[in-house]
């Protein structure tokens, strides 16, 4: 097993407070919400597991060793988990169980084949079509399928959540020092600064045969 301090990125002399802070930051970064329907969700899940284990290891080490401070809460964040990998696709009476299994196994081609064979284009069909598009990176089409699914079944939380993610309405992780950002909402004065800072590399020219802006 890796050194738990290394996993959390703190020295072994870190205070309980520092350990907790590092853990919280990492838990925020790899939180399932940031990897909702993401094709790399399994990697984030592994990372999350590693972090949880490291945090628990440090806590029990400190509890049993001389380093004890006495005031820790066990697993304050153990609620951050991914559950089992098919959880998101498993529950509920689904007419498309095999499609959900194929998606969970990252076999998008099979999932799409199964969907295309169905003639009943109900809300769930549209939702699953959206999931496949989303995982492939076809984000605009994913959004449109999700919209249709929500329209057909406005009370379904699963569909609504998928649409919220596709629309960027969930707050995504941002590293320390980076405020929230969205295209169209930052001052373009910044852009000019970017261009001028790289004047040193003034040889740049665009591939299409135009000189770029610096």
């Amino acid at each position, binding site marked *: 097993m890796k050194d738990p301090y290394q996993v959390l990125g703190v020295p072994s002399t870190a205070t309980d407070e520092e350990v907790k802070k590092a853990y919280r930051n990492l838990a925020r970064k790899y939180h399932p919400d940031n990897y909702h329907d993401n*094709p790399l969700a399994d990697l984030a899940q592994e990372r999350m597991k590693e972090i949880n284990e490291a945090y628990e290891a440090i806590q029990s080490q400190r509890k049993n060793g001389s380093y004890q401070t006495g005031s820790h809460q066990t697993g304050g964040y153990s609620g951050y988990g991914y559950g089992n990998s098919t959880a998101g696709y498993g529950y509920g009476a689904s007419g498309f169980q095999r499609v959900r299994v194929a998606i969970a196994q990252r076999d998008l081609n099979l999932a799409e084949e199964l969907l295309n064979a169905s003639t009943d284009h109900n809300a769930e069909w549209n939702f699953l079509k959206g999931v496949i598009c989303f995982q492939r990176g076809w984000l*605009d089409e994913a959004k449109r399928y999700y919209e249709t699914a929500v329209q057909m079944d406005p009370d379904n939380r699963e569909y609504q959540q998928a649409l919220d993610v596709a629309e960027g309405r969930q707050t995504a992780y941002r590293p320390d020092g980076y405020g929230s950002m969205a295209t169209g909402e930052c001052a373009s004065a910044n852009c000019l600064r970017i261009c001028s800072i790289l004047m040193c590399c003034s040889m740049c020219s665009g591939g299409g045969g135009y000189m*770029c802006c610096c």
Partner: protein
Amino acid sequence: MFGYVRPAQEKLTEEDRQRFQAVYCGLCHTLKRRYGQLSRFILNYDLVMLAMLLSGGAVCDCDAKRCAVHPLKKRPCMGCSDALDTAADYSVILTWWQLRDGVTDHGFWGSLKYRLLSRLLRRAYQKAKKRQPMFDHRTAEHLQELAQLEQEQCLSIDRPADTFARLLAGAADSVENSVHRRVLQQMLYHLGRWIYLADAADDLKKDLKSGNYNPLALRYEHTDGVLTEESRRALARTMDQSIRMMAAAFELADFGVWTNIIRSTVYQGLYVVGTAVLDGTFRRRPKKDNPTRKAGA
């Protein structure tokens, strides 16, 4: 490629800046070494990002070098590496096909510029093709698929973007570590998608004038090549979603010395450039209207 991908300068340390410059100059020198002085004109920031992503984050050895553009002062310059060599090969191939595309897209006079430049690049391209036959094949294929979608007047923005995105993602196919490969493929896919959309937005006006295919014109409402406020927000949202996908992937691998530079790009730089592209201020010196283009269009 097109030069849209830039780090956010104010988030970089002095050391990061020097590193960024070293890889920029390193790529430029690599182009010269492998393809001759003339090939250097194709260098741009997107290719520098590609070189960083492919390099695996090892500490680079840097020499100080002079060059024609900086004759007086020696500048830090990244030495030879496989990543720089590969990035240089890919750059030549991508630029060549982009130029060929320009030739077929324009009439006799309009294509003059493209024919001239591709004449200059021909020998370099032939060398690059021998070194990277797979990538060359895939690039040609990508353009064929794109031509097909153009012919169909495809209404989707995802499908044409997908052809370019897959092409870039393919640059990571040879990475051995499977986790790193998946992370890079995902980052490059969405980088490609974002670049394609940014470029389409940048060219919208021009394409409408010349009658060239532009998927944004079919997907979104616009008046004379200017997207309506609502369309612009919708496009921004889907571009931002790609940036978030890149950032989420970025957090899952170790990028060594490039970490800070890439972080500033995926959490800030791309948003800033995207904003400038969408509000039309990206090119500080707009392209002069080329009188020959009208004749050629």
